[in-house]
């Protein structure tokens, strides 16, 4: 440990802590561009100058290790003057294109100019011009004129993905970020460079020009793209729907979680939200008879399920739940099945192609809640339920989310199973081949439209919050189950997901001790739940300037 003083405040930090982090621990923000806690130290931007007592001149904080007895001051006159001059240097060749720059509003040149710059420009020479709007790969576009050469993107590709696509070429004021000629920035994590770019040099091809960032609302969430459960923010455009032709989810951004994804997410997860606003969203309950589908009321749709539950013996009822459902949904469904003694239940559907996986974040299991489903008794293979259906032992089958006809299951077997049961009900957010074959379709809210928890592959339970309202009449799965129970005279005693989570914690031993407040923003592992609570664990050590500003 090192005990030092920052701006008159004493603070103790672990040995090896740099002065940016030490100052942060003392509640002092040292402005910086090139420093990123997840990357090596470059010392390139020179903005993080601080005064250290007994040193002759200001020193960069990022590359100075806190030492016992150090007296650091971040607000001396000469530090302020130095910052101002460095800002002036950074902006010498920077184009004044903020009005058409997608970074405007979350740009650290803008922010720091207002905080630490505010000088009268002295540049009389023409600015150096560089390539603009150069696509680097499928997701990232470069404006070399806006770049301040902090090298964060270069270091990301060297140190995090070890793919080394980017470099700083030429020199002096001709230096520019670029790719080896003929190569692309096309790794599985490429768009993280957009998050860590402090300026408008690297922008997101999918997001840019959709909507100004100051119109976005954000919600803390969990990526539903695989079993890792990366922490994310969902950025939604509610206030200017006409700017993006009704697309509500504008983008996903990684949210720091030391235990799960650090500062990063993969591109597949980042761009995997398209289904939320897709034209194939299921908006109203519907009944299909013969070849045609008719919209019906929720009452009618619920009655179809409740009627079957009331009428049929439990051994003739089958359910295929989904590991994409939240713990709360699965628990509600488990309650319903237990109340009725239904044992034909599964959750796992084999995929046609095995999911890709790496040793970083990406998991082969593309479901966010496989472990939760297993703990709730939905770990079984859907094939057993379909077998029972094909053997004409089932009269009612409720499928959640899965597209059985796009899975590794034989299409013939699935269709045969469907034909063999009287009633097939599909509940999901989007239409698929399976929903097209169901007799009843009950629309589910997408993950961004409701709240709940997922249990990741490591047994970490994490909350995701509501970012937008459900489209059409869609409901969270637990609400659908609740309505079915209500119409059967049973009660779920839950008006919010949290109520169900409390019941789940009581009922499922693995979850014992957990609660929404305990999960906080970064979740809690199942095993550790019994031990000391640790709300707020894994708060970011820093990074104002990375990601989701």
């Amino acid at each position: 440990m090192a005990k030092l003083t920052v701006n008159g405040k004493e603070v103790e930090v672990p040995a090896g802590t740099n002065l940016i982090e030490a100052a942060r621990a003392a509640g002092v923000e040292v402005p910086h561009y090139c420093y990123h806690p997840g990357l090596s130290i470059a010392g390139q931007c020179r903005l993080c100058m601080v005064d250290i007592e007994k040193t002759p001149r200001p020193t960069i904080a990022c590359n100075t290790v806190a030492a016992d007895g150090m007296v650091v001051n971040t607000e001396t006159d000469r530090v302020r003057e130095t910052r101002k001059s460095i800002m002036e240097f950074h902006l010498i060749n920077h184009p004044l294109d903020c009005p058409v720059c997608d970074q405007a509003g979350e740009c650290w040149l803008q922010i720091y100019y207002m905080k630490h710059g505010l000088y009268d420009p002295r540049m009389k020479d023409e600015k150096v011009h560089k390539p603009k709007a150069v696509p680097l790969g499928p997701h990232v576009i470069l404006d070399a004129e806006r770049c301040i050469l902090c090298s964060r993107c270069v270091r990301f590709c060297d140190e995090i993905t070890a793919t080394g696509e980017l470099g700083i070429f030429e020199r002096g004021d001709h230096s520019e970020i670029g790719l080896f000629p003929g190569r692309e920035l096309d790794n599985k994590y490429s768009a993280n460079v957009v998050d860590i770019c402090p300026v408008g040099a690297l922008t997101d091809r999918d997001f840019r020009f959709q909507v100004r960032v100051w119109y976005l609302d954000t919600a803390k969430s969990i990526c539903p793209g695989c079993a890792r459960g990366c922490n994310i923010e969902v950025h939604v455009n509610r206030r200017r729907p006409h700017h993006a032709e009704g697309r509500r989810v504008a983008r996903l951004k990684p949210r720091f979680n030391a235990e799960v994804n650090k500062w990063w997410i993969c591109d597949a997860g980042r761009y995997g939200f398209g289904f939320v606003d897709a034209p194939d969203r299921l908006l109203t309950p519907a009944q299909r008879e013969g070849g045609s589908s008719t919209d019906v009321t929720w009452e009618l749709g619920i009655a179809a399920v409740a009627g079957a539950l009331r009428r049929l013996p439990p051994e003739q009822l089958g359910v295929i739940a989904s590991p994409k459902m939240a713990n709360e949904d699965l628990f509600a469904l488990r309650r319903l099945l237990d109340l009725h003694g239904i044992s034909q239940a599964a959750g796992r559907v084999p995929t046609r192609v095995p999911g890709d996986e790496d040793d970083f974040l990406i998991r082969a299991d593309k479901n966010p809640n496989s472990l939760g489903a297993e703990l709730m008794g939905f770990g079984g293979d859907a094939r057993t339920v379909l077998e029972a259906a094909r053997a004409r032992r089932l009269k009612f089958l409720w499928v959640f989310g899965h597209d059985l006809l796009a899975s590794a299951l034989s299409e013939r077997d699935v269709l045969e199973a469907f034909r063999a049961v009287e009633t097939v009900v599909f509940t999901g957010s989007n239409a698929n081949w399976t929903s097209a074959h169901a007799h009843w379709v009950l629309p589910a809210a997408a993950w961004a439209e409701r709240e709940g928890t997922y249990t990741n592959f490591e047994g970490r339970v994490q909350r995701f919050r509501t970012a937008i309202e459900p489209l059409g009449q869609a409901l969270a799965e637990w609400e659908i189950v609740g309505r079915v129970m209500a119409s059967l005279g049973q009660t779920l005693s839950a008006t919010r997901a949290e109520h169900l989570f409390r019941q789940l914690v009581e009922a499922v031993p693995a979850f014992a001790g957990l609660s929404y407040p305990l999960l906080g923003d970064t979740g809690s592992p199942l095993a550790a739940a019994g031990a000391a609570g640790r709300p707020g664990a894994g708060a970011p050590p820093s990074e104002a300037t990375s990601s989701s500003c």
Partner: protein
Amino acid sequence: MTDGAPSTSNRTPAVQAGLSDPATIVSFSEAQLGEVRRLQSVYPDARGALLPVLHMAQETFGYISLEVEEYVAALFDLSPAHVHEVVTFYTLYFRERPGRHIVAVCHNLSCHLAGAPGIIAHLKQKLGVDPGETTADRRVTFLTVECLCACEAAPMAQVDDRYELNLTPEKIDRLLEGLP
């Protein structure tokens, strides 16, 4: 270094050692690969040998093409982008095939005061190309460079691996005649 002294460098000029056929396969000989390994072992970090190996590559292949950058990157287990960073940073690596001879005139302060602008103008007129260009017959690549540390004999130029000092237009003419 005195006027006209033979170069102490054991490097042959890039243009003389360079292979004339641009389509030549980019590959070092076994002996050269041994030298690469030796150079890599003398630096604390093998990457330190990148500059001398790039010079070797330039002598062998005539210039540093993108293909050469990729080849050298593989020898160092570096990404080609990082070799490209180094090659684009330094001025002594040729990214395009230079002429058979390189005439590099200093245009830094001492030489400028001692008449470099006249020398440069004379060369432009004689060669018919601007600094940074190569004559159409590929005989001469004409460059202007920063101080080469021979201010006492300004204005000066480096012609291939030799310093040519106390230049005058007449001396330039004689020099050019001597370049095959």
